[in-house]
């Protein structure tokens, strides 16, 4: 079989050649861009339809006073002014901030400690079981989690029974019905759910850390606590940033857990922006104000995630 080789046609010398080459290059680039767009299209189309367009529509609705039924009337930025001045909305923002402590700070600390211990004990009997057990809350649907914890926190629930069993019955309370304890009680459910995820993230990070660093530290006389603060925590910075981003988003956008456990009550003591958006849009007939709050919440979450990632990159 004869092989034929393809020779490119001779290119004319001088300015004509340069022009022809430029045209061919531009055509190639355009074709490559079109091919790339075609590859992205199956994901881009539904994302635009179901995420970008509804978000833009929400931003548009936030400029109107609308009850969801009658004709909307344009009010400009009045809804945004109300978001920043209404005391109930400000209280919801404070509650969301408090939830960050329970959804982010506590789980990250618990995750770091458990990951550090599990990494030191890797290969020993029971460590894999402990890892699986701590991750278990993450695989349970949040609705089921909320129902389980309602039983735990009930007047005759497990927590109060445990307190009575150890002679601390005077501390027994209706945890989800208390103005003082309902927010920490709901927050601790978040800690229970998220801590396992943080641990798994940090455990994968500890596999990356060179064991020689620990050995060198041990030779210098460092104990487990010193190793944790001086080696594990600084070297897990990228994982901590990821965990912080995920958990801060979970805290600020929390809805289902609070809706099922307390519904925002008692009074407004556990109201968070998510609950308020739902109440305003579907109960209060204030779709415009709810949309403005949703836009502000989205902006706050985006800024928080950007700041976390920037800090994680810039830290020495």
């Amino acid at each position: 079989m004869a092989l034929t080789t393809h020779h490119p046609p001779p290119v004319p010398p001088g300015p004509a050649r340069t022009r022809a080459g430029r045209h061919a290059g531009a055509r190639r680039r355009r074709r490559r861009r079109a091919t790339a767009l075609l590859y992205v299209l199956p994901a881009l189309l539904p994302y635009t339809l179901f995420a970008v367009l509804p978000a833009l529509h929400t931003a548009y609705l936030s400029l109107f006073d609308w009850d969801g039924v009658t004709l909307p009337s344009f009010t400009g930025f009045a809804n945004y002014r109300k978001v920043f001045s209404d005391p109930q909305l400000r209280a919801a923002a404070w509650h969301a901030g408090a939830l960050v402590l329970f959804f982010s700070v506590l789980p990250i600390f618990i995750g770091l400690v458990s990951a550090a211990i599990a990494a030191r004990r890797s290969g020993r009997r029971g460590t894999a079981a402990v890892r699986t057990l701590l991750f278990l809350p993450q695989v349970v649907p949040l609705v089921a989690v909320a129902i389980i914890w309602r039983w735990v926190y009930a007047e005759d629930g497990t927590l109060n029974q445990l307190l009575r069993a150890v002679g601390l019955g005077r501390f027994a309370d209706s945890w989800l019905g208390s103005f003082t304890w309902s927010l920490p009680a709901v927050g601790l459910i978040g800690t229970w759910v998220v801590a396992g995820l943080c641990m798994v993230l940090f455990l994968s990070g500890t596999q990356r850390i060179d064991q020689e660093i620990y050995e060198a530290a041990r030779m210098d006389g460092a104990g487990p606590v010193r190793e944790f603060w001086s080696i594990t925590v600084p070297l897990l910075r990228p994982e901590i940033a990821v965990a912080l981003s995920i958990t801060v988003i979970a805290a600020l956008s929390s809805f289902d857990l609070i809706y099922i456990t307390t519904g925002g009550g008692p009074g407004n003591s556990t109201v968070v922006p998510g609950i308020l958006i739902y109440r305003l849009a579907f109960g209060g007939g204030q779709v415009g104000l709810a949309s403005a709050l949703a836009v502000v919440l989205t902006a706050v979450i985006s800024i928080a995630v950007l700041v976390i990632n920037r800090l994680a990159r810039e830290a020495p």
Partner: protein
Amino acid sequence: MTTPTPVRTVRGLAAPVVLTLFCAAVLVPFLSLLLASVQPAGTP
């Protein structure tokens, strides 16, 4: 020649104790669910 028996110090026990506490905290709600599910209907 005999090999020395490892002695478990209080410090050595700290890690297992912490892990056990975490596991207990995770398990309590599941056990409460289990207990609730074996109660006869109508029992508070």
